[in-house]
């Protein structure tokens, strides 16, 4: 069968976009955020046009419809991630999800001297909350290095670091390198050492089918906007026993059972962690995105992306002065290709690529410790998704060759 990429593209209005300079948009910044199919955009508009209402305590029809839609979205999304609605806590994104673990679980269950294992490959979202915790509580942080020959985690170092650890926080797939970490092994080894595990699936979820319950992982953080969903929403998936160990984080309406001037009691389970007016339109939009995605076989989607990425990387290697960071040919790479040119500085290159219509991310990608490990201040990064085509990749390689010839 194969994916019908042309038909998929036709569902994304933005992919017809002409840039102000007349060039057709070639969107290669998918690791930063994905584009949205019309059905996702429409699901949110329909909510606002037909049944917008504050959810919960529904005593009127609109509130009933909004609440049902919110909770149906929770069912759709949790089931897509292989778990039950009770294990899903809506957050504003992966960043808030990780902060939630730091505030609700770690502050309640760790104490001075306890060890948290991170890697050099983490996104700042999975570093800074732990550094803050370390400052406040005196927990120790160990960083597992990467092997800069093959860009893999140094699993021998991990094995040592995980001893006596209480919490292990690892990125599923690096947003810079596209490297997919051996999370199954990491979860197993962490549990063997008695540590809880948080996997940052911000990049993983758009590229493979995550099965939370099967993974036996304790916490998984996900952002909707990188997987065809809207901005402003994401989730933390939490195993039952871990959830029972969590204390409240942000507090206010909805998460309470009762409030008096003497004190308050809280809801149990995921409801304790969701306060204030819910992200109703966002949840509905994400639900629609997940429904849209679930019509495709993620392995097929992955091979499609992988084919483009490995072809592109191979061609780029032949261009004078280009260095690639990561191993895009590896079959489980997410297809993010980080690169630099020897003489054209990364920002200059970004502008020269933009001039050709190519949306390419440039900078430290919120992963400065990884940049330090690679010995560079920044990289250019192209990253592909379901709607990208080999033709786009070809035109990119041509434009890059042209730019390098003219400007290096």
């Amino acid at each position: 069968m194969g994916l019908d990429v042309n038909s998929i593209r036709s569902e994304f209005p933005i992919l017809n976009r002409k840039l102000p300079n007349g060039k057709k948009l070639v969107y290669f910044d998918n690791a930063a955020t994905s584009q949205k199919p019309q059905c996702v955009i429409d699901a949110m508009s329909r909510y606002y046009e037909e049944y917008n209402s504050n959810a919960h305590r529904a005593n009127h029809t609109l509130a009933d419809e909004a609440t049902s839609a919110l909770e149906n979205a929770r069912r759709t999304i949790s089931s897509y991630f292989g778990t039950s609605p009770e294990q899903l806590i809506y957050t504003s994104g992966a960043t808030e999800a990780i902060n939630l673990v730091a505030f609700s679980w770690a502050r309640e269950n760790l104490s001075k001297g306890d060890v948290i294992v991170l890697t050099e490959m983490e996104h700042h979202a999975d570093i800074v909350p732990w550094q803050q915790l370390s400052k406040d509580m005196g927990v120790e942080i160990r960083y597992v290095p990467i092997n800069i020959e093959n860009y893999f985690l140094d699993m021998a170092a991990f094995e040592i670091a995980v001893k006596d650890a209480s919490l292990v926080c690892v990125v599923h797939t690096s947003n810079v390198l596209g490297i997919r970490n051996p999370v199954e092994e990491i979860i197993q080894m962490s549990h063997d050492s008695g540590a809880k595990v948080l996997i940052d699936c911000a990049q993983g979820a758009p590229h493979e089918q995550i099965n939370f319950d099967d993974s036996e992982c304790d916490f998984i953080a996900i952002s909707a906007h990188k997987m065809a969903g809207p901005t402003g929403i994401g989730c933390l998936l939490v195993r039952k026993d871990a959830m029972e160990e969590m204390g409240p984080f942000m507090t206010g309406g909805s998460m309470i059972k009762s409030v008096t001037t003497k004190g308050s009691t809280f809801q149990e389970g995921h409801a304790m962690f969701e306060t204030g007016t819910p992200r109703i339109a966002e949840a509905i939009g994400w639900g629609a995105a997940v429904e849209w995605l679930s019509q495709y076989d993620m392995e097929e989607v992955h091979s499609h992306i992988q084919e483009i990425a490995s072809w592109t990387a191979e061609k780029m290697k032949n261009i004078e002065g280009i260095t690639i960071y990561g191993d895009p040919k590896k079959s489980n790479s997410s297809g993010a290709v980080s690169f630099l040119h020897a003489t054209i500085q990364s920002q200059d290159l970004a502008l020269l690529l933009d001039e050709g219509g190519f949306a390419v991310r440039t900078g430290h990608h919120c992963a400065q410790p990884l940049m330090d490990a690679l010995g560079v201040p920044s990289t250019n990064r192209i990253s592909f998704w379901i709607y990208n085509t080999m033709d786009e990749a070809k035109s990119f390689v041509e434009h890059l060759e042209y730019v390098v010839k003219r400007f290096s």
Partner: protein
Amino acid sequence: MEQRKWPKKLDPIVDEFAECFDSMERYELLFQYAKKNPSPLPIEDWSDSNQVHGCQSRAHVSCEIDENGRFLMRGGADAQIVQGLMSITALAVNGMSPDEVSQMSPDFTDAMGLKSTLTPSRSNGFLNMFNRVKEHAKNLK
């Protein structure tokens, strides 16, 4: 026609509701049934342990097996609509075997024309009350 999944003795009640002219009449009928609770739970017996959760109004249910080994549900609620539904539920389940109760479906409310009033996200708690009764029945088996 869909199969009726409720005890035969509910048929006249279901028909009575189904024949209502509109929702207002159905609500009126529920208000009337609220007054016909066959086995009320006196307010002094309303406690935290028999409270139905997820119900915005107060609703309490307690269940037991009577001397003849038959199921007996006692209920009370401050909202008449919930109370009416409780009465009807009690009329249905009282006298059944716990096993029969644990297998009951709340479909009769659809047939009564109350579907939209009783969606899971309406916080009137009928479904919670109903599930509570079935849980009791399971535990009393």
